[in-house]
């Protein structure tokens, strides 16, 4: 009995520790951002000047860079992960083979991002350079679009895996209802199975988006690290995460550090919101 009690208390404490940790990180981000918030206020979000020499900081280029890379990577990933989810759940009838495939897809998410970044830098970037030469664009290789391609590869496992799970959960009797009315397999998929699992698939994409939003290492390696607002999707840029990774060692003044941390705070809040929303939708779906 006493052992049980001790055990319970340990579990309870570890639970509280996690909550405390998350709130602690959040609070320390808030406190350390105060100098920058006091100095720039809401203008921090709308100013495009990032000028450490004159102690002027604005986050607009990085907000745009982050939004661009995550939205483009999401758009690239959608057709692929949707096809993978449908293939694994509906086409591969053999459960074992389907699960092996799913494991492989999920393993992609386990590749250390620095390796994906290296691949991007040494294989994809030269290829992009050749492509840009052919298109008559300044051949930089690295940039927003290259980073988006890298990101799309990294986020496919999340949406594909969740998509497979939710499509598999569509009850057989509902699908057979459609088949029994003379629908083909494709018509059943299009008009019954996919609408039925839409919320779950959507949540999968949302979580993918959240992942792309905060991904740091690989993006830092291939985005080109330019603190200007990108003027095309091929130009170099900077995301919030890559900016922090690039500049935290150089941040010498208090305001500089505080501005970087405020960007971290924005990243933290947005990522949290996306994740919470995605999880809420999935929970409502079934799990």
């Amino acid at each position: 009995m006493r052992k049980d009690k001790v055990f319970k208390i340990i579990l309870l404490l570890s639970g509280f520790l996690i909550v405390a940790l998350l709130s602690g990180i959040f609070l320390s981000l808030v406190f350390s951002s105060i100098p920058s918030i006091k100095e720039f206020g809401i203008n921090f979000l709308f100013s495009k000047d990032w000028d450490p020499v004159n102690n002027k900081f604005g986050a607009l280029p990085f907000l745009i860079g982050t939004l661009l890379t995550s939205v483009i990577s999401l758009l690239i990933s959608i057709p692929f992960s949707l096809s993978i989810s449908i293939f694994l759940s509906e086409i591969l009838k053999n459960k074992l083979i389907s699960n092996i495939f799913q494991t492989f897809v999920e393993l992609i998410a386990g590749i250390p991002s620095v390796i994906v970044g290296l691949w991007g830098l040494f294989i994809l970037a030269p290829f992009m350079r050749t492509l840009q030469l052919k298109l008559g664009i300044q051949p930089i290789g690295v940039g927003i679009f290259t980073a988006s391609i890298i990101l799309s590869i990294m986020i496919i496992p999340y949406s594909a895996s969740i998509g497979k799970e939710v499509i598999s959960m569509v009850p057989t009797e509902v699908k057979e209802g459609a088949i029994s009315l003379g629908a083909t397999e494709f018509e059943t998929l299009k008009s019954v199975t996919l609408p039925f699992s839409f919320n779950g698939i959507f949540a999968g994409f949302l979580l993918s988006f959240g992942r792309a939003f905060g991904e740091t290492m690989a993006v830092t390696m291939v985005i080109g690290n330019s603190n200007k607002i990108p003027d095309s999707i091929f130009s170099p840029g900077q995301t919030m995460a890559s900016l922090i990774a690039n500049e935290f060692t150089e941040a010498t003044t208090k305001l500089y550090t505080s501005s970087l941390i405020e960007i971290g705070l924005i990243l933290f809040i947005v990522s949290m919101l996306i994740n919470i929303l995605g999880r809420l939708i999935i929970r409502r779906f079934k799990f």
Partner: protein
Amino acid sequence: MENIILKIINLNAYYGNQKVLKNVDLEIYENRVTTILGPSGCGKTTLIRCINRLHELSPGARIEGQILLKGEDLYQIEPMIVRQKIGMVFQKPNPFPTMTIYDNVIAGYILSGIKLSKEEKDKIVEESLIKSGLWDEVKENLFKKGTFLSGGQQQRLCIARALAMKPEILLLDEPTSALDPVATSVIEELIIELKKSVTTVLVTHNIGQAGRVSDYTAFFYLGELVEFGKTTEMFTVPKSKKTEEYLIGKIG
């Protein structure tokens, strides 16, 4: 004199190596209700899934023999066409949860991409819902989701959905097994009413239900057709010992 609409000739059905139907010969008469009766696992459901070619969708499933619809071999026709001619209602009500009541009724047309004018759609929806006895209950709420209906209403919506395709035969796979007694009796009355317009094959293990609604009964046991005949005759003087044992509850 009865008209034969469906003729099953020497049908064998398999799941992998397991033979679930053995040498079944059966005739279904037009505009009559025929009950497929028997204990669980006797192949009742497999039989009707062979009739609308759903059986072949299960992995490893195959059949031998012939099924003729008005003399035409069903296994020589596209399965989608077969399923439009032979509608089915399942054990558990399965309206499409993402569709409105209205769309559920014409789902067969929507799914197959058959274009209908607004008037045609309205007409099919109203007629099918009247036939399934649901019209008065849902006519104010046609554009609400079908899943808000009660279980019995959902099942009648599924019957309306099948009737909307104007099928030659309606297959009912234990349609009341998930319903309460009141909803069950509504469906049973509906089955009798529907005889005028459609041939019905009803799968059940409920002897009382078979007696109340069907003209003919085929009794199955362990994959074999034991006895076929007029329900009234079979229930009063069964020819086979097995049938008698099942009817008085000795086996089941």
